[in-house]
């Protein structure tokens, strides 16, 4: 469980409603901006999320939980519809990003990892969203629009133009198909990189990320994701990927990359594209500092 939500869910009286139900996740909200998720134990730890062990014969969308059901505190934890979640069974977890490499050797290693990561996106990523930003093969109107706007956001961040980054970033929010539109996933990936400790991105960049997340006009699930990402909070698989890219051998990078790419329908690929864009921009900025 995300340690940051332990108190809100289990330390005081909680009242919320089920927002959406999927086979491996139930999202529930306490307000427009506070969204939480119960996810199957097989999935990653993630911000705002409690991993739960459900009976293996019954996925979460087969437990009778419906959108609008009450989620309330009980003596031992929470009740989500008719399904109990016991506080004693959850283990706290916190996302801790590894530092951006501070030495030229470390950045060369990161650049080599980035090549592997980009190859993995091209090889294993799913089309339809921002894979085209990496592969250069935008075919549909949505893909073309996404690529054009993502490129503008990245340029603005690299150029250190906060106003332009904010304007172009807004143009990407909510754009694309799916529960979390591709543009949101991409921005979330970039925001995570902007928040890597000791990185080349400064307070201005982080303020732009926070402003984008705060004003995000997108779906509830996406909005919650962006708010976490703007504070450098991301799922365990992404943390593992960044750890591998900064400090592990190439085959660990490839394996971690594939795990990120496997998540969601196209979300894993769109998030990966944002991470790759953020790292690439970061290396460019760090290179300028050296010069």
């Amino acid at each position, binding site marked *: 469980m995300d340690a940051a939500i332990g108190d809100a869910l289990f330390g005081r009286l909680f009242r919320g409603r089920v927002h959406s139900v999927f086979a491996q996740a139930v999202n529930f909200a306490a307000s427009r901006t506070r969204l939480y998720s119960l996810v199957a134990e097989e999935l990653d730890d993630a911000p705002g999320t409690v991993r739960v062990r459900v*009976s293996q014969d019954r996925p979460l*969308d087969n437990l009778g939980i419906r959108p609008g059901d009450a989620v309330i505190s009980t003596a031992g934890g929470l009740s989500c519809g008719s399904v109990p979640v016991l506080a004693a069974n959850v283990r706290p977890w916190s996302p801790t990003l590894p530092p951006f490499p501070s030495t030229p050797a470390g950045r060369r290693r990161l650049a080599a990892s980035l090549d592997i990561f980009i190859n993995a996106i091209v090889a294993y990523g*799913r089309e339809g969203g921002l894979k085209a930003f990496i592969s250069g093969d935008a075919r549909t109107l949505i893909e073309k629009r996404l690529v054009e706007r993502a490129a503008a956001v990245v340029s603005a961040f690299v150029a250190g133009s906060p106003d332009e980054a904010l304007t172009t970033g807004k143009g990407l929010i909510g754009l694309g*198909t*799916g529960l979390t539109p591709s543009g949101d996933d991409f921005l979330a990936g970039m925001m995570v990189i902007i928040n890597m400790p000791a990185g080349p991105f400064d307070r201005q960049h982080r303020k732009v990320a926070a402003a984008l997340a705060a004003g995000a006009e997108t779906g*509830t699930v996406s909005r919650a994701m962006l708010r976490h990402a703007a504070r450098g909070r991301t799922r365990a698989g992404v943390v593992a990927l960044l750890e591998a890219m900064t400090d592990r051998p190439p085959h660990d990078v490839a394996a971690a990359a594939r795990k990120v790419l496997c998540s969601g329908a196209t979300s894993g690929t769109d998030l990966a594209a944002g991470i790759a864009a953020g790292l690439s921009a970061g290396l460019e900025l760090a290179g300028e500092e050296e010069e």
Partner: protein
Amino acid sequence: MTVRIDIRENTYYDSVTLMALTQKMAAHPGVTEAVAVMATPMNKDLLAGVGLLTAAADAAGADDLIVAIRAESDAACEAALALFAGATARRAEDKKTAVSFTSLDAAVRHLPGANLAVISVPGEYAAREARAALRNGLHVMLFSDNVSLADEIDLKTTAHEKGLLVMGPDCGTAIVNGVALCFANAVRRGNIGVVGASGTGTQEVTVHIDRLGGGVSQVLGTGGRDLGAEVGGIMMLDCLAALSKDEATGVIVLISKPPAPSVADKIVAAIQTCPKPVVVCFLGGANAVGAGGTYFAATLEEAARAAVALATGDKPPSQACSHEKLATMATVARAKLAPGQHAIRGLYCGGTLCQEAARTAPGEGHIFIDLGDDDYTKGKPHPMIEPSLRLPYILEAARDPSVAVLLLDVVLGYGAHPDPAGVTASAIVQAREIARAAGRHLEVIAYVCGTDADPQGKAGQESKLAAAGATLAKSNARGAYLAAAVVSREV
């Protein structure tokens, strides 16, 4: 033009589902534009840009789904929206009735009589799931690829010790007790057992068995690496042993690309102790009768002919199929070629079909592409599932002044695209037109690997290709022979 919008409040589908349904709606007759997106301001902006943002769509919230259609008529709009509604309703109904499990162990507890697991998960997780299946006493059909050779050897060794089969990795075709698994064709049941180390090779043999009046008892796959020196043919040998004992099997067919010599020796030795007639097609060999009554077939079609003859108590035909008529057809086509047209361009969905055809090509300068190969399918569907991936290659071939023959396969069956010929036909027309405009004749030879009982229907698929101007071949080998004859000066 008419625009219709359907707003679905608080409705969520994943992006792949929405893209697939959007493509289906866009392909509906009369529909010129179809979009299904969450109603975020940016997506509304996108809709406005293409003239699909109505007042109702503009009023929708970011957690609502917009389905927008532009079509030539109200009826076409309605039909496309009905298509979306029908597909999502079926999906909801499936969710209610389908039993799904979060682990293999749970599925085994629910279905204690099951003895086979079909595994199709990303390669890095596949070996773990296959081990779980073997632990539970299940045979495995491993559709996943990208499984390491070490894992494959370990899984097959474990299965062998337990008396179980591991079909795969990268095994795409099997028919077990009459049930077609993954990519397989609707073929008659009978007394011919087939073991294939190649998916479309197995499909080609089984459809010819069906066309010749025969039927199959079991069709088992081994995965393409099984007959390599490292794996050593563990599964080919175990499948051969299993079919030797199977009462419903009277004749056995083994299909593979040429195996490692050491493995070929082991297989030939095992065949000699098999009490049933065995037909072997190691692609590229010649028709021959080996020791112990083993029949070696040069082509996949010949393997099927030999098996059907043996299954009915006859001797396999001693002569290869007659190609006299094909030679005449080739002469006619050759006469239409412009100077400089000398090459075959084979664009294949089936890897083994591609290999079989490539072996027939005379001389040099020909290009055969297996578009189902990993190099072409990374991050994309297989061309048997999405045949439109082949269309740019068809048009590219048409622009190449050296290309005389375009050779295509169209693979039908369960799991394949519902209308591959329909998707391909317009590109064939366009390709021939491109060549004609440049003063050339492009001979398009197509082969449909399938049966009339397949969901796509062989006859209907063939008529679409013929209407587009393709010459139809009766088998993959015959198509390849015809292509070779067209470009060969000696024939």
